[in-house]
């Protein structure tokens, strides 16, 4: 009597005692998929029927996800800024006021001969004033100056193999010891610091992301736990009429999946809104630095990853809740 339904094959419909599906495997599969579709739709409908609580749960998930995502994007922005400069660390050497153009030419020749240096560019003081006039917007105010306050400047590009902190440091010291040199400015320093800070932040954001991911799993787990409680009778009846564990779990796993999807989409939306709001001041800042950098945005692939990860978290949370609470519900 208790024959395995999978072995019952094709018996004529309506025969007594043949309570198993009598359809060929194809029809079985279709009805299995139809049940999946129905369960998925039913889970979505239940969320739609309680829009406010669904939205609140979705927002909690979204905020937990949007925070690390936004931080990661900002970090990525910082890293693109620094990486553009990284390879061409340049050293600005400001020469003393009394150094005239010919002497400056001589120094340029001299430093260009150094093995550590691949290129030296001389920015004459008039040239420097000209570009300052153009870029600072101070134009006419500069006409009030009696003479040019800017020194001649040499811009040194070190050889690639000297692009390394300690070698650069030694080079800077040698440059500083020159009697005609007033000041040496190494662009790399702040970039290195920025990179170091970015590395620290990256780890911080990763840790935060993991923690908040866990929070999403727990939030969804708790939501599913409540859903299980409220559908207790239904679970008991399903188990009494022969519903398998998988059958009973399915609606809750779909609910978790949909909460994840909702949270992921809302998180994307939150990040977009926040970045749209930030973009105006950021653009102005970039403009002031004469830089073309802008905030990194989420690509289509990033959005898919975000929503996918969120759905995974949702499924995981639901699975944990189901494992803990659903299997304990047995008809008594």
């Amino acid at each position, binding site marked *: *009597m208790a024959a395995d339904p999978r072995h019952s094959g094709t018996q004529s419909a309506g025969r007594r*005692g043949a309570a*198993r599906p009598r359809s060929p495997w194809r029809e079985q599969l279709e009805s299995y998929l139809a*049940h999946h579709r129905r369960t998925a739709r039913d889970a979505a409908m239940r969320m739609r029927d309680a829009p406010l609580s669904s939205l609140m749960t979705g927002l909690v998930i979204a905020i937990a996800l949007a925070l690390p995502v936004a931080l990661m994007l900002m970090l990525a922005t910082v890293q693109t800024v620094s990486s553009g400069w990284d390879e061409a660390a340049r050293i600005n050497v400001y020469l003393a006021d009394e150094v005239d153009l010919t002497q400056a030419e001589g120094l340029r020749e001299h430093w260009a001969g150094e093995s550590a240096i691949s290129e030296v560019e001389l920015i004459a003081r008039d040239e420097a004033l000209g570009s300052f006039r153009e870029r600072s917007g101070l134009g006419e105010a500069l006409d009030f100056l009696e003479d040019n306050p800017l020194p001649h400047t040499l811009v040194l590009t070190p050889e690639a193999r000297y692009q390394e902190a300690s070698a650069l440091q030694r080079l800077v010291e040698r440059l500083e010891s020159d009697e005609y040199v007033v000041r040496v400015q190494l662009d790399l320093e702040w970039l290195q610091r920025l990179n170091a800070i970015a590395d620290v932040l990256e780890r911080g954001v990763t840790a935060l992301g993991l923690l908040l991911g866990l929070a999403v799993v727990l939030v969804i787990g708790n939501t599913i736990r409540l859903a299980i409680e409220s559908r207790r009778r239904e679970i*008991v009846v399903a188990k009494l009429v*022969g519903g398998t564990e998988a059958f009973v779990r399915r609606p809750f796993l779909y609910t978790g999946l949909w909460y994840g999807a909702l949270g992921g989409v809302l998180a994307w939306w939150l990040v977009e809104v926040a970045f749209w709001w930030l973009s105006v001041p950021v653009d102005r800042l970039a403009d002031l630095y004469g830089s073309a950098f802008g905030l990194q945005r989420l690509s289509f692939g990033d959005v898919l990853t975000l929503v996918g990860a969120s759905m995974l978290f949702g499924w995981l949370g639901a699975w944990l809740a189901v494992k803990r609470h659903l299997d304990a519900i047995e008809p008594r």
Partner: protein
Amino acid sequence: MIEFERVTKRYADHSVALHDVSFALERGEMAFLTGHSGAGKSTLLKLIMLMERPSSGRVQVGGQPLDRTPRRRIPYLRRHIGVVFQDHQLLFDRTVFDNVAMPLEVTGVPPRDVARRVRAALDKVGLLSKERMNPVRLSGGEQQRIGIARAVVNKPPLLLADEPTGNLDPALSAEIMDLFREFNRVGVSVLVASHDISLVQAMGCRMLTLSEGRLTGDGSHSQMRGAYGG
């Protein structure tokens, strides 16, 4: 169909619900299980459903020994047993139709067959016209008949009922019992637990009497008159 072989059921608190019970219910047979409340009727039914497992002894259902049935196989076993409960276990968040359709949904019956079979089951219990209603709006007798429709929609070879008339007046109770007899007439094995002796006697079926966990009587009601102190 059902075979109990020296079955004892002790609960965790050491109370003995069934003591050394042996009996067999043949395929196509109909029998009543009687006894005072607490005599072990529900425990006996739960053992058949694998809601409980015996402490000792063997239970066979449909020729299959239950003692080696792993947990994950239990659902497949239950699909061959229709059960009717005293509190009918209907769900009030869905229609009569959807309640009756549950056993079919669980086994993955194609949707077009579901509708046909649900209506056939509702027709048998005389409630075809109420398929779109919520069971909460129906009377106690009607609710119990929906419970019966759900129990038989899968065409199980075995039908169990635990105090199916517990909350009903005598006229409705007789109606419900007649339904069971009808199913038995078309070949379904039926085992009904009830403490309503006069109702059971009126049916004239085989009667298994439990008393404090022991099977104290087994026979038709005429043979039983003395055994059940009544």
